[in-house]
């Protein structure tokens, strides 16, 4: 491997890592602002203009706080928990295509860290690993509330991963590939051959199932039972303090960012935007606009996550399981059958 490629990828990784951290940081701020606006309030407005330095203040606070490790906890696992949570949250962004190619001089740069041919499976693997962080943390705390939260997180993630995987299978029957780059390329532009190119218009039911499962996988309301304050004190992170708690909370926001990016890539055309090649712009400009379009979609989805959180209350646990096993999985299977029929008839 040539050195320049290594440097190029290293820069790309650093930039994407930085962007996902900053997005997660500002998601915490956005969450509080969105919550405030939805409740006719103002939200944080003291740190800097409109409170935009609030995330920095929160981060500083998290680092300064006293670190408490319960004596009865299992020492190493207690530290491994949040580390694993934040690690798995961060590495999911590696396979997402952030844009098309940039041409700088004679060099063509792919705006994707790596295009592995099982991109979706990789994402699924990473997401499934994410629950280990929660489970280990909840187990190591040696606290019944933490353990209950961890059990809830584990069973919830396992249940909803099935429906999520099945909804993806229907999508894969249309795309014929697991590579996220190719899926994004297939959704080029907005309109082709008499129908929309974006997958959400080919797989509306699949998208609905996918987004519901994404809410469950990221432990966001209305599926935030693992950290349900009214029942479990703080859920799996009851015993955590200082930046270890910060990492858990932060991992949730990074997960939200990554799942928004995955949804935008799989169903909403990724970096594609309408008329992208009919405007007569240069390739590089189209690429940059594509990145902007992708981030606009991601920000919309993040906003949607928050909008839903501040609208509907939490499910009861048996209702959650009912929804997962008795509704979403049969629906997803029906969706596969329907997709198969449509794909054969309209080929």
């Amino acid at each position, binding site marked *: 491997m040539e050195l320049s490629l290594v440097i190029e990828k290293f820069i790309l990784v650093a930039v994407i890592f930085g962007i996902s951290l900053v997005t997660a940081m500002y998601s915490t701020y956005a969450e509080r602002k969105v919550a405030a606006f939805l409740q006719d309030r*103002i939200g944080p407005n003291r740190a800097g203009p409109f409170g935009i330095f609030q995330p920095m203040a929160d981060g500083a606070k998290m680092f300064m706080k006293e670190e408490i490790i319960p004596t009865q906890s299992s020492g190493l696992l207690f530290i491994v928990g949040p580390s694993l949570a934040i690690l798995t949250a961060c590495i999911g962004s590696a396979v997402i295509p952030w844009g098309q190619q940039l041409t700088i001089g004679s060099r063509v740069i792919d705006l994707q860290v790596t295009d592995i041919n099982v991109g979706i499976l990789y994402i699924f693997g990473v997401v499934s690993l994410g629950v280990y962080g929660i489970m280990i943390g909840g187990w190591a705390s040696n606290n019944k509330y933490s353990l209950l939260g961890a059990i809830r997180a584990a069973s919830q993630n396992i249940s909803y991963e099935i429906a999520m995987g099945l909804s993806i299978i229907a999508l894969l029957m249309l795309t014929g590939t697991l590579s996220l780059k190719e899926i994004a390329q297939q959704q080029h532009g907005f309109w082709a051959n008499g129908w929309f190119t974006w997958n959400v218009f080919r797989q509306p039911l699949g998208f609905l199932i996918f987004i519901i499962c994404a809410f469950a996988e990221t432990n966001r309301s209305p599926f935030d039972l693992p950290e349900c304050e009214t029942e479990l004190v703080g859920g799996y992170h009851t015993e955590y303090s200082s930046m270890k708690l910060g990492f858990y909370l932060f991992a949730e926001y990074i997960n939200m960012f990554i799942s928004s990016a995955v949804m935008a890539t799989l169903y909403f055309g990724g970096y594609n935007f309408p008329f992208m090649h009919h405007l007569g712009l240069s390739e590089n400009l189209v690429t940059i606009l594509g990145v902007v379009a992708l981030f606009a979609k991601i920000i919309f989805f993040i906003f949607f996550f928050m*909008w839903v959180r501040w609208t509907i209350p939490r499910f009861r646990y048996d209702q959650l399981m009912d929804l997962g096993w008795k509704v979403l999985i049969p629906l997803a299977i029906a969706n596969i059958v329907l997709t198969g029929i449509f794909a054969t008839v309209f080929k």
Partner: protein
Amino acid sequence: MESLTNKKKVLEAKPLNFWERAYLPAILSGLSITMKHFFRKPVTIKYPEVKREFSENYRGLHSLKRDENGKERCTACGLCALSCPAEAITMIAAERQPGEENLYREEKYAAVYEINMLRCIFCGLCEEACPKEAIYLDGDIVPTDFLRKDFIYGKDKLVEAPLNQ
């Protein structure tokens, strides 16, 4: 049993129809309601910079009044302390000396007059009890402080500013 008030209303528990069980239409209407609130004007009052307007009869910090000549009205009769349900008021009376006629209206005055703002419940009974119209709860909110002793307000904080200044 026969209803005594005729206000009883029998509710029928109807089974949910398909769309109600599907849950999504309800979520969508909920989302539209919250979105309406998103664009509504916030009701927040940014407190230290902007203060909520008090009503005419708001009972805030106490002030000991002076009469039209700038003399203190309080005669240390103790009725306010007696009427205080929280026992927040204490005072020590003193006799007016010759030459102090411009300071105190009558022969007796309060040398020490203290209100413990942590005990006070701002009921306004002292104001009602006062025969000399000397105490009124017409001030602001009691400001915060760090020590309990600093919440015992003496005459330096309670008495109105002199007239000619």
